[in-house]
């Protein structure tokens, strides 16, 4: 029943010139361009991570000097956070999937969308320009007065982060308006895929929080350049105030990183369990609630900074409140499988791995939120392990699941399922081997950002470094078979996973340049599989591309 649509043009084939890509207003192509850009950023950040891990195999100098090491971990963080993880899911998958999932022809402001992409590229290049002028030192947190006292590279990095902030803001703004104004007829808020809900919640954070990193970077720039005395204690400024400014953005930014992962996992859990996502309304609304609560907890990064105890107590209490909806979400995802029909394809393996790693990230987060325990654990490897479990074990593992899930739709090709499963195993094993030992050495007292360390920690560091190699091998394997699939991959069908969201049921593979041949009319929720039993009755791939009026 799908053959009649297969002969039509698609967004990849209709115009293949370079210019048609660089100047495209098509959200799908912009998504693909982001995919390439953030993958390069991830590669660069990843290589730096491997170098950092190799340096830490033994105390003292292993492969680089202390200065080189300090710059390597700073650059690793700056690249991974600002150029990779913040744009990764929203800008790549949000761009590609969001208009398709809501039945729109494009995002609300396509030109702005393209502008966001180039602003991102410009910001990333400016930040990298720092390498040419001098040292990039001080960690991604840029704490004053160290950041204002060292090298001029920081001027470029702050400018780059400032510029990339605009890209993030404009993307978020675009998505909010798109979700509000461009949904297909019948697609009520209660029927939205949970990926849309989470991207929507993410966009709220992007719009409300990112301007503050803008002004923070501007003030830091002026502090370094003009010595305005707001943050520099030698001039009567207050470094702790800088930390408030910084974390007012950077804590919500953690939710920019994790909320989209929640959305992907929800979609994967529903589709591969062929089951209504348990507690749909709770999962949807709690994403928005977490987005807002995420603004009220930034001070838990500052329990030992010298801020007042009053604020530490307030921030600690609210930190728990945000932990509860997150915990309930995990339970909802697990119980989605209950009495479902679970199919363990590669994307689902990532969703299941996510439940494991993210739960560890969450529980250790609770531990760090306890005032008395945090005093001991703050700025140790325990914190390093915790945020890698949340960002990498949460965001990146979910993003890999999403990438595999939407890869057939993006490219029209299936990847090698067997290699996919092997790579998922390598990533999961390597990730845990890299970061779990860090919890133990952190609790033992190993401080973070240490070039040299006491010999008693070497065993943990060795394990961690070996883990990073396994993890790296898994990631390179993924890169390999995904690229191979472009050349010799099996042609993907319209709906290889049996999903019920519009990008699978109402578009061709890959999609038409204008997404839908006819505006879809939605009559059921994103996971109402029981209302679509007849679609699955034949046991073949389900699609409603041509017969859109019957459903």
């Amino acid at each position, binding site marked *: 029943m799908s053959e009649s649509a297969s002969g039509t043009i698609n967004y990849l084939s209709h115009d293949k010139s370079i210019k048609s890509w660089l100047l495209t207003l098509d959200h799908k192509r912009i998504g693909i361009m982001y995919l390439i850009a953030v993958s390069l950023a991830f590669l660069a950040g990843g290589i730096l991570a491997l170098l950092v891990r190799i340096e830490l195999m033994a105390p003292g100098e292993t492969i680089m000097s202390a200065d080189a090491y300090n710059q390597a971990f700073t650059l690793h963080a700056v690249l991974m956070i600002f150029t990779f993880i913040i744009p990764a899911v929203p800008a790549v998958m949000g761009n590609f999937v969001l208009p398709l999932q809501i039945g729109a022809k494009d995002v609300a402001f396509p030109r702005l969308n393209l502008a966001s992409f180039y602003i991102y590229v410009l910001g990333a290049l400016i930040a990298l320009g720092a390498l040419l002028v001098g040292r990039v030192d001080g960690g991604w947190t840029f704490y004053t007065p160290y950041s204002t006292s060292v090298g001029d590279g920081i001027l470029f990095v702050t400018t780059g982060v400032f510029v990339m902030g605009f890209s993030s803001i404009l993307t978020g703004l675009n998505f909010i308006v798109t979700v*509000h*104004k461009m949904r297909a007829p019948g697609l009520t808020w209660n029927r939205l895929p949970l990926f849309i809900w989470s991207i929507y919640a993410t966009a*709220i954070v992007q719009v*409300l929080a990112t301007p*503050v990193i803008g002004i923070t970077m501007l003030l830091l720039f002026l502090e370094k350049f003009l010595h305005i005395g707001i943050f520099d*204690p030698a001039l*009567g400024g*207050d470094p*702790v*105030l800088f930390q*408030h400014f910084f974390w*007012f953005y950077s804590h919500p930014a953690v939710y920019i990183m994790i909320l989209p992962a929640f959305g992907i996992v929800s979609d994967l859990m529903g589709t591969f369990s062929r089951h209504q996502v348990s507690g749909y309304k709770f999962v949807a609304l709690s994403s928005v609630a977490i987005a807002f609560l995420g*603004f*009220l907890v*930034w*001070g838990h990064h*500052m329990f030992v900074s*010298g*801020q*007042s*105890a*009053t*604020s530490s107590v*307030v*921030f600690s209490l609210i930190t728990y409140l945000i932990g509860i909806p997150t915990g309930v979400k995990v339970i909802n995802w697990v119980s989605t499988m209950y009495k479902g029909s679970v199919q363990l394809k590669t994307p689902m393996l990532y969703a299941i791995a996510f439940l494991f790693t993210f739960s560890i990230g969450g529980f250790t987060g609770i531990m760090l939120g306890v005032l008395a325990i945090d005093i001991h654990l703050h700025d140790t490897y325990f914190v390093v392990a915790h945020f890698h479990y949340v960002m990498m074990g949460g965001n990146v593992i979910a993003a890999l699941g999403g990438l595999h899930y939407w890869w057939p739709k993006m490219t029209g090709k299936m990847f090698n399922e067997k290699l996919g499963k092997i790579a998922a195993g390598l990533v999961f094993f390597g990730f845990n081997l890299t970061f779990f030992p860090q919890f133990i050495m952190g609790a033992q007292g190993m401080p973070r950002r240490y070039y040299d360390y006491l010999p008693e920690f070497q065993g943990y560091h060795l394990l961690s470094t070996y883990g990073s190699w396994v993890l790296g091998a898994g990631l390179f394997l993924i890169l390999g078979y995904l690229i191979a699939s472009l050349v010799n991959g099996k042609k993907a069908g319209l709906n290889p996973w049996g999903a019920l969201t519009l990008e699978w049921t109402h578009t061709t593979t890959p999609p038409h340049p204008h997404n839908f041949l006819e505006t879809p009319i939605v009559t059921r929720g994103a996971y109402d599989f029981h209302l679509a039993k007849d679609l699955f009755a034949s046991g073949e791939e389900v699609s409603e591309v041509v017969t859109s009026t019957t459903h």
Partner: protein
Amino acid sequence: MSHAEHHVSSIKLLAIIFGGLVFLTVTTVLTAQLDLGSFNVPLAMTIAIAKASLVVVIFMGLKWDNKVNSVIFGLGLLFVAVFISFTLFDTLYRGDLTNTTKGTIQDQVLMEEGLQSREPAPSTLQPDHTP
């Protein structure tokens, strides 16, 4: 999307609002010259909020606009309030336990110098700004 005619504000209404805004500006400049003690700040802020509200509600047409835009604007203000108040939780109560001091070392040095020179230290040099 329900199609509604866009609201058109009459010139008379706009002029009245403009007149009101100018009046409030003159009022705030004049009252600031008086010494009202601790009332100066709340009064100036009240007038500023009144002026801003007139601009938002009438000039920017939020009164007749889609409700969602009011929600967006309200959220923006809410988070500014969060930013300010949660930062003040720290800066107003800095040093409430023994882990850090209220004042800075510079201020303490300045105060000691002031005491030693036995001239009345300018009030601005007091290190302790207890809320």
